[in-house]
């Protein structure tokens, strides 16, 4: 069981308030991702939940019980750190056994849990090695192993994949998602990478400067971003945000259209533009196109391979049903 509730939680470092009053509920078994740019307070929020930082005001409840003043060890949460924080002088086995040893569990039970965790995480052959003798991905798995043997109420991940190379990251992303499906335990995952957020989350919490901009499922955020910040942050490549005369036509201050929702044609269309840089990915082609409607070049996706020379004239037509409209405060209209 792991239902976590934050009730008007704030955090200040000296005079600087990094988290203004914040309410959030994380349901049992949910995979929640905190996402936001660097310095948005997402890691601080995670550390508040873990108990590694004291909250300034407000309450944290875990499973309906007030955990505000509980020490980290008593909250029943396990954390995987960005640096993995493995104990370098202990073997993998001892690393994983450490929380159990601290809980004074008996030897047979410790061994049983280590074997179980090691087989889940493919670590059986490495149990007697030191962390220094493992690759980045294996260390990551040891860190996860140390977390799962405790059978915690919830897992906290603090940017766990940021030290891995791109290929390994995709692999570990799948492994963590799979682990979540198998254990069905609450997981809170902090990342600045919106791709990780979109692919793994049941619920995404988008943060900026300590403020929750929007909470919702990945597709909700993609389809109905609440404001221009979320619109620009979720989705890759970024949504095109157009202000000025073109937006006025749609009774909005800003309109947004995703690259995949613009048709590109060499003969006819709504907006006229010139091709700038083209990015060929094989499956898709992304064009950066300079138009009259916006100072910034628009990003447009064309499915498959499409070759248009630099400077070629093209016409663009946004699919109006996918147009997002925002008011002067950047909030969504309609």
């Amino acid at each position, binding site marked *: 069981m792991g239902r976590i509730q934050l009730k008007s939680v704030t955090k200040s470092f000296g005079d600087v308030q990094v988290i203004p009053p914040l309410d959030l509920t994380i349901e049992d078994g949910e995979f929640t991702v905190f996402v936001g740019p660097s310095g948005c307070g997402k890691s601080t929020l995670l550390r508040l939940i*873990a108990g*590694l930082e004291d909250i300034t005001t407000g309450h944290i409840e875990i499973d309906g019980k007030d955990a505000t003043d509980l*020490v*980290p*060890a008593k909250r029943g*949460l*396990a*954390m995987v*750190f*960005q*640096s993995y*924080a*493995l*104990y*370098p*002088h*202990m073997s993998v086995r001892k690393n994983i056994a*450490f*929380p159990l040893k*601290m*809980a004074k569990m008996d030897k047979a039970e410790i061994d049983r849990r280590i074997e179980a965790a090691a087989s889940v995480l493919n670590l059986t052959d490495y149990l007697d090695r030191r962390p*220094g003798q493992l690759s980045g991905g294996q260390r990551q798995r040891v860190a996860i192993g*140390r977390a799962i043997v*405790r059978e915690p109420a919830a897992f906290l991940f603090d940017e766990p994949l940021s030290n891995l190379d791109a290929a390994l990251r995709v692999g570990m992303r799948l492994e963590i998602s799979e682990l979540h499906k198998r254990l069905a335990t609450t997981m809170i995952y902090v990342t600045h990478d919106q791709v990780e957020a979109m692919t793994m989350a049941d619920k995404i919490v988008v943060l900026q400067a300590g403020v929750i901009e929007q909470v919702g499922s990945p597709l909700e955020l993609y389809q109905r971003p609440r404001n221009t910040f979320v619109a620009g942050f979720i989705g890759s490549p970024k949504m095109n945000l157009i202000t000025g005369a073109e937006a006025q036509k749609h009774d909005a201050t800003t309109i947004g259209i995703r690259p995949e929702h613009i048709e590109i044609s060499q003969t006819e269309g709504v907006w006229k533009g010139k091709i700038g840089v083209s990015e060929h990915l094989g499956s898709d082609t992304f064009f950066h196109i300079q138009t009259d409607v916006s100072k910034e070049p628009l990003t447009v996706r064309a499915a498959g391979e499409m070759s248009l020379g630099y400077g070629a004239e093209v016409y663009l037509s946004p699919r109006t049903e996918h147009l997002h409209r925002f008011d002067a405060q950047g909030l969504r209209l309609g």
Partner: protein
Amino acid sequence: MATKASRSAARVMMAPAVVLLLGWMLVPLTMTLYFSFKKYLPMRGDSLENGLDWVGFENYTRFISSSAFWPSVQTTLVMVGGVLAITVILGILLAILLDQPFWGQGVVRILVIAPFFVMPTVSALVWKNMLMDPVNGIFAHLWRFFGADPVSWLSDASLSSIILIVSWQWLPFATLILLTAIQSLDSEQLEAAEMDGAPPLSRFWHIILPHLSRAITIVILIQTIFLLSIFAEIFVTTGGAFGTRTLTYLIFQRVVDSQNIGLGSAGGVYAIILANIVAIFLMRIVGKNLDA
């Protein structure tokens, strides 16, 4: 930069330093070995110009069969061991203390290092005359204030007193090395241990202490090298009396007080052997911390 030319250039440039250091070490060593096999009593008219008599191993047997020899070895080991124990244990505690954030941290850290800059002779004099003097010393006043009889430290508890003085001098060194080691500990490791349910004492025992093992090794090795040759503190305080005669001091007495250079040199060779035995033991016990 590891081309053939740069390697040979490096060798040429290093040569003067290597030759100088080698000479610096080899000349006194050879002279000690040479004198240790000679009868050399300057007060009785022996001199290098007249030629010295070859006496074989007589100096060696005389030095070792002297009633002062084994007690001096024991004193040396007790002194080195005592100082090491005090500096390492207190050093770890002080380092942990100084690692905590507190007001005036910078100033306190400099003050902690200060005793290391005081010359051994000076610090021994200060301790002897201002702190440990049985009549006017601060300790004597303190004892009298609480109604106790002042202790005459340097005669009644002479060896412990010298261990105390030397520990005071070397504590800053140990603290400094251990402090930098503690500061290099990844704070996430401590947080992970905290999340894993380790109380503060367990965190110290399972995380901080293993992390410090290499620094502790370095402190022990370096201090041992210097502590085996403690001299000024003994010379200034007890003059080798009251069971404070270490091997180093015994050699000094043989050469300077008894004016027997041959006998002293033989003692010097024993000191080299003792230092090597201690070094081998240390390397065996703690040296394995240095690899990996």
